[in-house]
């Protein structure tokens, strides 16, 4: 109970797709290497009861075996694992609610607890089905094993990405052909699972990168879907490499919010300047000093680069409760006190569990090839966009993914009832992306939650809207009133409190 926030902070990050991981290639190895292969032994086609991380109850696990390469059905097979959180009172046995995880590279099954909590209302009458997309979680995970490094002391700006990528690829080539881990092929796995389990219709919920999967599902298997929710929308027309702009926008909104809050503005009147000067200072000269390790408490060495500093801020923007600590952390950093940044940095280290190989397969095949000169220019204009692109441009030539066809970028043209959710404060998928995805959807509603970050259903009342859509089967009666309720959290004014002292407040 005491550590609820810790858990929630982790979940939020885990639940939300983090394109950020790209930035962290060569940085989060120690966390990634822990990602374990499924500890389940199971025979094909059979279901058995199992326990999932964070869920105390027994649920059903199973798998469906598919060829890794659809054009070579007799070559290597891989097992697509799934988990069913059985409906409490199954009133719609022919339907399932499918939550698709983000990343790319997150395991849906590992996030069962979060999905279970968020969609408890839906589970009252329908099964929740979680499928580990090929290359993630238990389904032939493509993760990269790196040597253990000291995350605090090492210099992330001097990592040889190309070398690390090469090493990862040669490790993975023993068990996988990485070119077969594209979104399009993965969607056909989902359809195979649907058929194997005998569901007639799916209700899809795709978050972040999962929204791309959901849209591809709409494109390829229209008949199999009853409703779709796209949350933190990545439109088909958009290469995700435009994310730099979105991060900058979100950082700017943080400054704005602080300025509009009387207490925050009083405490940190020059927040943006603090941010810029700290970045500049760390850019010129990374901070080096003795600190106590945030986890072990042992005295150790910290090397704080600009990239680590900004990466930490960026990660903090994903969840609204951590976001509330950022103005204080930035202000203190500018004064030379990096304790809060250190604390934030340490929790970003433990929260990531992306399958980096699968992540690379998707981004290198589906996003880098669609990078137009215009988009590249835009990306280069932003620090975040620029550094991201740098890593990717080093990684992808090694990965050598075939590029998707031009038609991949066509907007989804569909009459399936679709709910699109965007968070105004989202540091990854801004509301404008949701507008793009809406273009050719004839039965769709797009709601923008003014106080939500990435993943609207996981905060605010977005989950209730999803439940309503699933139950009613159309978007007609959906209403965004509840999203507009101002339930914003106050910013931390010091290391202890969000509430200003009464005496000060009266001034």
């Amino acid at each position: 109970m005491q550590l609820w926030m810790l858990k929630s902070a982790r979940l939020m990050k885990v639940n939300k797709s983090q394109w950020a991981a790209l930035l962290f290639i060569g940085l989060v190895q120690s966390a990634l290497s822990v990602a374990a292969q499924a500890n389940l032994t199971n025979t094909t086609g059979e279901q058995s009861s199992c326990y999932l991380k964070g869920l105390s109850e027994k649920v059903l696990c199973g798998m469906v075996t598919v060829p890794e390469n659809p054009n070579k059905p007799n070559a290597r097979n891989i097992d697509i694992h799934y988990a069913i959180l059985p409906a409490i009172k199954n009133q719609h046995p022919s339907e399932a609610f499918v939550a698709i995880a983000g990343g790319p590279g997150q395991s849906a099954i590992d996030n069962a607890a979060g999905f279970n909590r968020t969609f408890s209302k839906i589970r009252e009458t329908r099964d929740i089905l979680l499928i580990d997309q090929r290359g993630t979680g238990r389904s032939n995970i493509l993760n990269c094993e790196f040597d253990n490094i000291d995350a605090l002391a090492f210099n992330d700006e001097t990592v040889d990405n190309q070398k690390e990528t090469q090493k990862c690829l040669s490790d993975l080539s023993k068990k996988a052909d990485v070119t077969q881990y594209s979104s399009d092929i993965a969607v056909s796995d989902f359809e195979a699972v649907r058929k194997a389990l005998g569901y007639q219709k799916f209700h899809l919920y795709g978050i972040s990168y999962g929204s791309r999967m959901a849209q591809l599902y709409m494109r390829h298997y229209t008949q199999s879907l009853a409703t779709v929710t796209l949350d933190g929308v990545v439109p088909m027309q958009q290469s995700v490499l435009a994310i730099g702009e979105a991060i900058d926008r979100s950082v700017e909104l943080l400054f704005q919010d602080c300025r509009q809050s009387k207490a925050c503005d009083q405490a940190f009147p020059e927040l943006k300047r603090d941010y810029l000067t700290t970045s500049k200072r760390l850019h010129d000269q990374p901070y080096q000093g003795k600190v106590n390790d945030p986890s072990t408490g042992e005295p150790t060495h910290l090397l704080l680069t600009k990239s680590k500093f900004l990466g930490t801020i960026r990660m903090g923007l994903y969840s609204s409760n951590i976001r509330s600590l950022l103005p204080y952390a930035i202000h203190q950093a500018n004064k030379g006190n990096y304790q809060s940044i250190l604390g934030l940095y340490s929790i970003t280290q433990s929260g990531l569990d992306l399958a980096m190989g699968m992540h690379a397969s998707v981004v290198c095949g589906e996003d880098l090839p669609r990078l137009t000169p215009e988009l590249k220019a835009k990306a280069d204009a932003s620090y975040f966009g620029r550094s991201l692109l740098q890593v990717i441009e080093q990684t992808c030539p090694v990965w050598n993914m075939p590029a998707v066809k031009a038609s991949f970028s066509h907007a989804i043209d569909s009459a399936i009832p679709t709910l699109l959710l965007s968070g105004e404060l989202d540091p990854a998928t801004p509301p404008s992306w949701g507008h793009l995805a809406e273009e050719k959807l004839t039965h769709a509603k797009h709601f923008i939650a003014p106080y939500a970050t990435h993943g609207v259903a996981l905060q605010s009342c977005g989950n209730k809207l999803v439940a309503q859509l699933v139950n009613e089967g159309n978007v007609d009666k959906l209403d965004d009133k509840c999203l507009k309720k101002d339930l914003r959290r106050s910013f931390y004014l010091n290391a202890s409190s969000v509430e200003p002292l009464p005496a000060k407040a009266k001034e």
Partner: protein
Amino acid sequence: MMKLLNTLLKKELVDAIRDKRSVMAVMYYAIGSPLLMCGIFFMLINKFSSPSDLNITIKKSQNAPDLVRYLESRGITHGTGEDLKAITLTISHDFAKDMNQGKPATVTLIADNSEQKLKSSINRVQRALQGYSSEMASLRLIARGINPAVVQPIKVVMEDQATKQSKGSFIFGVAILSIIYAVFICGMNHAIDTSAGERERNSLTLLLSHPLSTRQIVLSKVLAVTTLAMTGLLLTLLVSKAAYTIVPWQELGFTINVSFEFVVLGCLLALPIAIMASTLQLFVSFFAKSFKEAQTYISFTLFVPMMLSIATSYDLAPDTLQWLPVSGQQQALMDFIKGKAIDMAPLMASNLITLLLSIGLILGMEKALKSEKTIFGL
């Protein structure tokens, strides 16, 4: 022997079916009891679940606006009007001051914890306050450069063996009780009618004057009453199967589903109980001087199986009860529902005891029907 038994049984059944009271007893119970149970479950569900929007009184909310908004995001708001719960949260005057100094800031929760209806709502407010406190604790640690994981030295991973059904085992116990009880209620009226009633109407001596053995007479009556009891049970099961689907179990986090398999098993396991109930009721009624007296005696006998059944529902002394009649079979049914393997030894023992008891009572009745005292109600 068989032919006569058949004739006797047929007449008993025709007689029973034409007896409005006997038929009503079956119908009332078979239809009424599942509906009544559903009604009770509806009420329970309403009582135990906290409303999605919980209105309480929050005093001095200006001292902690962030906390108030946090509570609101969890559906707990300051409100007025009808659905206001008798829960008051007062935020201390020094809340902000204590917060800023890193000291525990006080909020006071005023409510009557003994009030069942409020319990879930009080828990919910407490959980929300805990949640806020934990979140803040974690962020305070982060702000000081400490990973909050260090204050969670032990992570307890709970692997709950419960199944969807076993979560509702108490409610299921009550439901099974009401179903098993059908065999006691549904045959009762005919049991009295065909024994004390038969004597009261003077047809008993006529029957005994015919070339029959008393065993044939007793067996035919036992079979007839058992048939009625089992018909009542089957109807109760079928009505329950239909009625229980309406109850919004999902709001309690489990479901009670009367499956086809359960209907079959229920009938099988209740058969010995039905035989025992019939023989017991006939036995008691044969010793009563009149219909009315028989009714009184039988209501005394209903008490015992009721107690056994309730004790089983509450899971009192299961090790002893599983060997006894009624509770043994009920235990087996509950195990089946929970998806547990049925422990055959106690079930068989319980069935055996049930049947031995029945045989004893049948022999007793045979003897009684040869006794002048019983025949003429002396």
